[in-house]
């Protein structure tokens, strides 16, 4: 199905199932511990256990690697290093090699895997590896590295700043202006389920059970890494315990399980222990951002500039933190630029809402600061500078943009009018209290997505697609889509996901999964409807599918009758034309936060949060709400505690476990509310839906920071906002 004109009325619009808060169909499996995660599959008979050896240095070479004691240790079956593995390919989506040696590119880069009869034996044996390194100097300091970094485009290629109008003169001439620097630290995905894979070879065919957001990318990249045909690999990931972008890529676990299994001649399981994950895998890169905003006295932005610098290993890419600034606010004169430095830290890459998440953390503090300079309410200042068109190309309109409604309805619901605009005034016992607001913005991305749908004689509908459910609710919304399109209850739909045996979907990431994967399922269901109608002698265009029957005029037939002689199958994919270029597809929202800051200790505790989201049709308000409250929680983490600390002497993230890299716990998140505006975006896809899982994160950090400012009068531009950064500015002790 080609989607190249706005969606007309279609079977989804009935919204008998779609749009309802259907419980997660995989919920009982999750809550009873019976959903099978990557490390738990029992189809692989008699597996051995792999344990990864990581580099103890950040940059240099292995002078020698003595594995004699490892090989002689009890239970050891095989040891694989780069030398044993032979020449390996490297997929374009991986920046650093997954199996290092003799060159080492980052701390905890894998340099080998030990395979033994038990996990304990493999772990104990791996600790016996004797490695001597030759350390090389590395660059681990982002500030230093950025001093000589040049401007790049979003993909990391040399470029020039993007300028609209004449930014410099307009900024210089503005009567009210802000020029400030903001910093965000490196972040860890810190997902619950660690990286894990089981690999088993059958002659030259490889089966891998893994935990990966993108089945087809992972399969193809594993084939490329192992120099084998993609068709010879089965890549399976039916349940995933979180990823947040960390599992978009092929990682060490799958590669070393495959190499270990080959060497051992049997199935091998590999998981990464938590303290090894942070430096071995990817992270959200730190940024240093400069924002300049100029406005006329009435609050009209006349110049807006946003520059961001980040670092990555050679060949890596930038954190695209200026993305939203191109589109979020009006302003005739604009400048955005990304700088990319070379760092020898572990690989930087996508983490939930890459670009916008750290970009909005900076931009939305800047907007708060500007509003104060102008003497305007921060909600009113944002509304004043709303735009319904792409500011750089005014002929491109937003397909649907209700930012203003998000802000006004949110302000009303939250009781924004009770906020004292003068900071440091509100007090509740020992707590200084304050409210903050930020806009939410994240682009909507479409992608080709295929599915196959079967109908059997009992009327049961089975959907197959390689789409993944990373805890988001994919199983459920796909079932809802098929149920709606086929006119059957959700209970009559069986959903099979996460297997390379199935048609290639858009996968999970970039908040693109829900809308495009369901659109692909819709396309396949339309094909199946045609097949059913044909089989039963109905006109496919006029036949109604409802209540498990097909009807036309006075005639009706049970759906299953069409499959009486054998199951019927519809297969198709959704493909996108130019609508996403003609129109700007984005999602919008507003975040409101109330905090208390302890006047004595400076500790900030969240009191309540509200998100208002405008993201097209919400396919399942229950799972969408779960996504948004989870994202808001992550936003609180980024505001108050999350930071991978770089040891610039040794070049690694020091706090590489979950005791020292703190993420919010339940006690940090007392009250959250989410409102979805009733929307349907006909330019987006036949579902008229857009992404929402990352929108819920974008802006939260700044809303917290702005609330802290409102509470204390102390402006912090350096995340996370921990007490040590403003203790000396709090009210003096009496």
């Amino acid at each position, binding site marked *: 199905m080609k989607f190249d004109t706005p969606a007309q009325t279609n079977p989804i619009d009935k919204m008998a199932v779609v749009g309802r808060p259907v419980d997660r169909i995989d919920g009982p499996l999750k809550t009873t511990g019976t959903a099978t995660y990557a490390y738990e599959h029992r189809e692989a008979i008699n597996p051995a256990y792999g344990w990864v050896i990581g580099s*103890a*240095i950040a940059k240099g070479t292995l002078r020698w690697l003595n594995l004699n004691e490892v090989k002689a240790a*009890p239970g050891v079956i095989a040891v694989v290093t780069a030398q044993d593995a032979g020449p390996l390919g490297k997929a374009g989506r991986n920046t650093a090699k997954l199996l290092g040696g003799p060159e080492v590119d980052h701390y905890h880069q894998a340099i080998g895997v030990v395979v033994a009869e038990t996990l*304990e034996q493999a*772990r*104990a044996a791996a*600790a016996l590896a004797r490695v001597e390194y030759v350390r090389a100097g590395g660059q681990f300091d982002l500030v230093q590295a950025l001093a000589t970094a040049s401007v790049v485009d979003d993909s990391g290629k040399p470029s020039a700043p993007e300028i609209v109008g004449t930014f410099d003169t307009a900024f210089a001439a503005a009567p009210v202006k802000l020029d400030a620097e903001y910093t965000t630290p490196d972040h860890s995905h810190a997902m619950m389920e660690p990286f894990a894979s089981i690999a088993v070879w059958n002659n030259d065919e490889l089966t891998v059970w893994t935990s990966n957001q993108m089945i087809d990318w992972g399969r193809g990249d594993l084939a490329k890494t192992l120099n084998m045909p993609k068709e010879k690999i089965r890549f399976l990931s039916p349940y995933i315990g979180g990823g947040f972008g960390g599992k978009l890529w092929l990682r060490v676990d799958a590669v070393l399980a495959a190499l270990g299994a080959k060497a051992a001649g049997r199935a091998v399981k590999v998981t990464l*222990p938590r*303290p090894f994950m942070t430096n071995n895998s990817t992270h959200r890169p730190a940024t240093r951002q400069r924002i300049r905003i100029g406005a006329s006295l009435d609050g009209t932005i006349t110049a807006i500039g946003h520059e961001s610098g980040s670092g990555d290993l050679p060949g890596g890419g930038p954190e695209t933190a200026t993305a939203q600034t191109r589109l979020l606010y009006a302003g005739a004169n604009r400048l955005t630029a990304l700088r990319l430095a070379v760092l020898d830290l572990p690989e930087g890459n996508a983490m939930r809402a890459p670009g916008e998440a750290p970009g909005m953390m900076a931009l939305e503090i800047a907007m708060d600061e500007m509003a104060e300079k102008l003497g305007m309410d921060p909600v009113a200042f944002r509304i004043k500078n709303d735009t319904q068109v792409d500011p750089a190309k005014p002929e491109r309109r937003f397909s649907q943009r209700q930012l203003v409604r998000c802000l006004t309805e949110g302000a009303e619901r939250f009781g924004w009018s009770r906020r004292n605009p003068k900071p440091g005034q509100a007090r509740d016992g*020992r707590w200084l209290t304050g409210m903050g607001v930020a806009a939410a913005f994240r682009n909507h991305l479409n992608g080709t997505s295929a599915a196959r749908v079967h109908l059997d004689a009992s009327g049961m509908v089975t959907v197959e697609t390689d789409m993944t459910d990373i805890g988001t609710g994919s199983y459920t919304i796909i079932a809802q889509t098929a149920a709606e399109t086929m006119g059957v209850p959700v209970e009559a739909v069986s959903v099979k996901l996460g297997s390379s045996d199935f048609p290639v979907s858009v996968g999970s990431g970039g908040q693109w999964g829900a809308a495009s994967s369901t659109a692909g399922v819709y396309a396949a269901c339309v094909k199946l409807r045609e097949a059913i109608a044909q089989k039963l002698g109905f006109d496919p265009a006029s036949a109604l599918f409802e209540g498990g029957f097909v009807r036309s005029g006075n005639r009706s037939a049970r759906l299953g009758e069409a499959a009486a002689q054998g199951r019927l199958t519809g297969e198709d994919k959704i493909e996108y034309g130019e609508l996403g270029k003609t129109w700007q597809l984005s999602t919008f929202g507003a975040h409101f936060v109330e905090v208390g800051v*302890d006047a*004595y*200790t*400076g*500790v900030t*505790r969240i009191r309540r949060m509200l998100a208002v989201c405008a993201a097209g049709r919400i396919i399942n308000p229950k799972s969408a709400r779960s996504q948004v409250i989870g994202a808001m929680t992550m936003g609180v983490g980024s505001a*108050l*505690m999350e930071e991978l*600390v770089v*040891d610039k*002497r*040794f070049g690694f993230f*020091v*706090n*590489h*476990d979950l*005791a*020292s890299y*703190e993420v*919010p*716990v*339940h*006690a*940090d998140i007392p009250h959250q509310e989410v409102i979805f505006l009733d929307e349907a975006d006909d330019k987006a896809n036949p579902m008229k839906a857009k992404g929402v899982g990352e929108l819920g994160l974008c802006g939260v950090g700044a809303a917290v920071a702005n609330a802290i400012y409102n509470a204390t009068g102390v402006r912090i531009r350096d995340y*996370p906002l*921990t*007490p*040590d950064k403003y*203790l*000396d500015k*709090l009210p003096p*002790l009496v």
Partner: protein
Amino acid sequence: MKAFTYERAKDPVAAARAVAGRPGAKFIAGGTNLLDLMKIEVEVPTHLVDVQDLPFDKIEQTPEGGLRIGALVTNTDLATDERVRRDYAVLSRSIVAGASGQLRNKASTAGNLLQRTRCPYFYDTNMACNKRKPGSGCAAIGGFSRQLGVIGVSKSCIATFPGDMAVALRLLDAVVETIDAKGKTRAIPIAEFHMLWGDHPEREFALAPGELITAVTLPQPLGGKHYYEKVRDRASYAFALVSVAAVIQPDRTGRVAFGGVAPKPWRVEAAEALLPQGAVAVTAKAFAGATPTKDNAFKLPLATRALASVIAQAKA
């Protein structure tokens, strides 16, 4: 994790003998700290003597009017004991400020006292650490030290003792009772139990090899208002940046001890005598001679402010 042998002790002296007679042997009770460290080979015992069957799981009145807490009383049982909540509320509050419900169900009183530091360089076996490997150096000095010690530290080690319960025990002048391989018992004042690092940060506790903790005794109740103010970046399940244990009497005198700042619970009796003069006077004295790093210098004003909040609450 290195392979180890395991035995379950039947009586205290046999347990002490089993550890004393064997280099590399260690006691295990709840295991909430030891097992994690064994998995990453920071701890590499060759033999574990499990003491959980020993009869140390009771809280009893002492003839002196205090409480004798068995070494194996769980953190949960201790924190919820009616007598503790009534008469030693600071102890109860310090315990529930630490770890999580699940860990407190498993962790023992003696084990809590014996927990190791949370210095990140101690946890990473690629890094130099005098505590983990004597003489190898200290990677934390000059490194990331936001959580680390500001006073009582040394040129060999700037780690802290990370616990909460011990801070309250120090405030209450608890006594640690032990038994050794010969059946000899000893009473160690809590003030002497945790050692300053000096040149030997590998020596953390005033225990001889194989010496087994049997109980912790509390003297008579102090009365007054009890506080445990724990400052941390998140609301729960985090180690203290700074904590303050205090008992404040109606005449504004009292006791105060600090956690998260030193190799041991930090109580300076001459400093707490200044409580009626306010927090600034107390901490100026308590932290005289502090040697903070750039990363953790904030702990000094934070300690003052945290104590000020306690004093303000006591006045209210």
